């Protein structure tokens, strides 16, 4: 039965099968070794990789801080944006759903193609925007019809909105999409649809308004679909900014100068709080939020009246006669003149070998200080400027805030120019001349100011000599309110200046006597100015000086006025510049009067409003200085 051959075969089989079995054992050990290598030695590395696969960190965008006026009115808010999305995987047929949606809201052929293209490109569970910025009625109708619109998902997003449109465009600014250069370390900026401040306060206070991103760790599957949230850190909303601006005053002012290329600044003379800061024409910041069209933007850029410039802080103008208070105070303080000495004006003033002129061709005759200010006699100021010298004028102008920035929280603030001997040598390479001083004496020549500086100057003149600085934001809670330092001068000299400013409006010889107090409660003073844009040539003067109305707009004088009110215990300062507006008394002063009139009327109506409270508080605290 069991043959020798069988036995041999069996032995061979056993040998060789044993060999193969050994090989199998070695290979299996290899598997075990590999398992040990991956799961014991490599486990931490692979756990990390598995988590990287599974966990996705999603940023939660913070709510941008609101910007409010002093009474809590909204100036920049976040508005719910009603949108409709479609989720392709939940729609049986995307085209059919869109067709059904057409009955509720219009979908153009171009939109339809864009949507279908996006549907094809994206993963099926990601929403595709169908329409945005819907009104509530349409949005509600979509919601009601949801059962008949498979795949449609109503959605609410947040967009920045400026309810006052162009009213505060220059101050508040606007937000817009992040561009590539701006992407920095803050990962928020890479969030789709995230907007950052591009102009105004939105830009310079962007960090405060932005808030802090939150995040949510979510588990995702291989397709990136969210399975569940693992943990969440909520975002921190940005700070709310409370402006000192009074929306109503701002609105009144802006409407008053809507048709001009003008700037108006209104300030509380004691606290420096800016109640209104207007620059016209302006633009609607809402246009920039969603991306302005090139055509619209070009129109803004090419407008000769420069709507994109904030003239109130960026515009530098010769102050004209509004500078005369500085010159007068410098002269009084230096003792080179007093309020009694009269100077004769025959409309001509010789200095060196040139002749300077007074604006009044027939001359003012003999004038003393108060009348010289009120009637704005140029010859008088040529003379006293020459007597006191540029050094002291420069010094006095500096004390009243001219020639420097205040660091207000509005971008683009300019220095203006408070000229001096050193400045001329450094910048013009020439020595200061007597003629230069005469020009500065009437606020022409090299001196340049911004409307904001003029308003600060006026405040400091009328507030009892406190060096207030302008504020647009209420200080953060907890910061101490310090009384601004005192500007040193003799009170009797300041009284003369104030008499002059009061006389401008209230005395028959004042240039703005036409605007005198006729109705009870509208008492104010100030100083007009008309700044030459173009030098009047000798030949032109020989023939006849053209009236402003006869010149092309761009060559007309700038009309200026700095004012304050009420006359007793002044509380508000106003500066007005109407570019190429002509005469200060006829063009700028009425604007200031109307604005002050509006403020007083508003106070009467709402005596309990903050405007009174804060002004009264400041007033009471150092009332003895006045």
């Amino acid at each position, binding site marked *: 039965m069991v043959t020798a051959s069988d036995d*041999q075969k069996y032995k061979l089989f056993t040998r060789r099968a044993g060999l193969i*079995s050994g090989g199998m054992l070695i290979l299996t050990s290899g598997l075990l070794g590999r398992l040990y290598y991956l799961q014991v030695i490599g486990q931490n590395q692979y756990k990390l*990789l598995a988590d990287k696969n599974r966990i996705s960190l999603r940023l939660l965008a913070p709510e941008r801080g609101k910007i409010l006026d002093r009474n809590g009115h909204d100036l920049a808010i976040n508005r719910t944006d009603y949108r409709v999305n479609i989720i392709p995987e939940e729609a049986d047929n995307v085209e059919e759903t869109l067709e059904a949606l057409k009955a509720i809201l219009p979908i153009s052929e171009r939109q339809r193609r864009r949507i279908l293209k996006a549907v094809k490109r994206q993963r099926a569970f990601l929403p595709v925007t169908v329409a945005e910025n819907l009104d509530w009625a349409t949005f509600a109708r979509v919601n009601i019809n949801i059962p008949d619109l498979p795949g449609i998902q109503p959605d609410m997003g947040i967009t920045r909105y400026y309810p006052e449109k162009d009213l505060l465009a220059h101050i508040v600014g606007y937000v817009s999409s992040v561009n590539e250069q701006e992407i920095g370390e803050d990962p928020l900026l890479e969030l789709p649809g995230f907007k950052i401040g591009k102009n105004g306060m939105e830009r310079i206070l962007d960090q405060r308004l932005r808030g802090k991103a939150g995040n949510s760790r979510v588990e995702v599957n291989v397709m990136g679909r969210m399975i569940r949230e693992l943990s969440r850190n909520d975002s921190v909303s940005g700070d709310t900014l409370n402006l000192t601006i009074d929306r109503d005053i701002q609105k009144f002012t802006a409407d008053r100068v809507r048709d001009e290329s003008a700037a108006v600044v209104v300030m509380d003379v004691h606290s420096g709080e800016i109640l209104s800061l207007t620059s016209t024409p302006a633009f609607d910041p809402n246009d920039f939020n969603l991306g302005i069209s090139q055509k619209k933007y070009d129109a803004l850029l090419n407008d000769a009246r420069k709507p994109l410039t904030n003239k109130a802080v960026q515009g530098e103008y010769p102050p004209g006669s509004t500078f005369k208070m500085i010159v007068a105070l410098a002269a009084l303080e230096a003792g080179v003149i007093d309020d009694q000495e009269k100077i004769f004006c025959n409309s001509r003033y010789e200095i060196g070998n040139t002749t300077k002129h007074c604006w009044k061709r027939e001359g003012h005759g003999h004038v003393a200080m108060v009348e010289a200010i009120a009637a704005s006699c140029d010859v008088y100021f040529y003379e006293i400027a020459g007597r006191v010298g540029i050094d002291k004028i420069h010094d006095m102008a500096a004390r009243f805030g001219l020639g420097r920035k205040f660091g207000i929280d509005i971008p683009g603030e300019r220095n203006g120019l408070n000229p001096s001997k050193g400045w001329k040598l450094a910048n013009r390479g020439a020595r200061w001349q007597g003629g230069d001083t005469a020009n500065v004496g009437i606020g022409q020549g090299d001196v340049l100011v911004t409307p904001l500086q003029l308003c600060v100057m006026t405040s400091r003149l009328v507030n009892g000599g406190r060096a207030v600085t302008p504020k647009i934001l209420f200080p953060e809670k907890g910061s101490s309110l310090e009384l601004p330092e005192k500007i040193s001068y003799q009170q009797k000299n300041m009284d003369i200046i104030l008499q002059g400013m009061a006389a401008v409006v209230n005395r028959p010889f004042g240039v703005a006597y036409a605007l005198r107090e006729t109705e009870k409660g509208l008492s104010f003073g100030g100083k007009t100015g008309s700044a030459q844009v173009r030098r009047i040539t000798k030949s032109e003067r020989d023939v006849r000086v053209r009236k402003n109305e006869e010149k092309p707009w761009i060559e007309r004088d700038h009309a200026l006025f700095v004012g304050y009110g009420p006359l007793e215990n002044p509380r508000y300062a106003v500066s007005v510049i109407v570019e190429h507006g002509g005469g200060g008394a006829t063009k700028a002063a009425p604007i200031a009067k109307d604005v002050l009139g509006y403020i007083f009327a508003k106070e009467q109506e709402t005596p309990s409003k903050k405007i009174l409270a804060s002004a009264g508080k400041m007033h009471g605290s150092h009332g003895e200085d006045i």
Partner: protein
Amino acid sequence: MAARLQGRRYSKSLLQKLSELNLLIVVVVIMIAVVGFALLYSVAGGAADPWAKKQVIRFVIGMFGMVVIAVIDIRVWMFLAYPFYFLSLMLLVIVSVMGQTGMGATRWINLGFMNLQPSELMKIALILALARYYHCLTKDEAGQYGRLIPPLLMIAAPVILVLMQPDLGTSLLIIAGGVAILFCGGVRLWIFIVGLMAMIPAAFFAWNFMKPYQQSRVLTFLNPERDPLGAGYHSIQAKIAVGSGGVHGKGFIQGSQSQLNFLPEKHTDFIFTVLAEEFGLMGGVGLLGLYIILLAYALIICMGVRSQFGRLLSFGMAVTFFLYMFINVAMNLGMVPVVGVPLPLVSYGGSAMLTLLVGIGFVLCAAIHRDTTISRGGAFA
């Protein structure tokens, strides 16, 4: 003595045979299958559908087939070996002709209740046929070169057909199973040495015949980071799943790689990664341990079988089983390129499950009929 042998040989009743079924093997097979059910339940996110339930049904059917095969007299199988081989070959030809004539490039024939892959049948049939061939040769005859030609042709014919499908994994399994029988059947040792050396030029030759996707798989195996989102993706994600399982695993139905679909083919070829991720080193070593017990016992059995046919048959089946297991696990662990080989008794799929249970059926059959002697002529002696 002779009478007792005679009695054993002829008078084993069905009940006797059933009682002689190797219980250890049956228990281990069930344990491995249960691991598979659990994993299929897990990858479905904790549901019997769509995989676990079907797999249980198939396993029960397969177990029944396994027992039937085990109790049928081994001489019947020897008698049927060649016809079975030719039937399988015919089916393979039919499948490739169908594929060629554009009636759909399929690898299977629809039997109504399941899809039959002739290449799976062939794995069994080839071992049966080769076992019979070497059973009928003496040791000296087995060493003759002329006698080497028929078995080589028997291997080459199906391999060529399967390569045409093209299915590299299965053809390698067929070759390896066949060569193992040749080796144990008595082919001279130096032929294997020459053959091994010949594989180097053959590899070059094969490379040129490979389809681009096969070449890409080999290249990607050598460097998975070459294409992390494409061909290398499977390999990298599988390694992450296994490695991140650590020693204790992430817990049943807790594997992030498998539950979040980062794993490809997680219910079929890459099911071992699910085990390794959710049950960690413990789970992986545990399953490999079950396989080792099963194989070790199968090898012990075939050493004790009296007939050369039974020895070669059971050994061939054990080697085939091992190859499935090794190639699949090695692929899951990123040790070999990705080839379509399932994890025995665990991966979802009917054909492979049936093949493997049939194979184990033959091992059990050899065990029950270990004392049956069969003449070289092949007839009932």
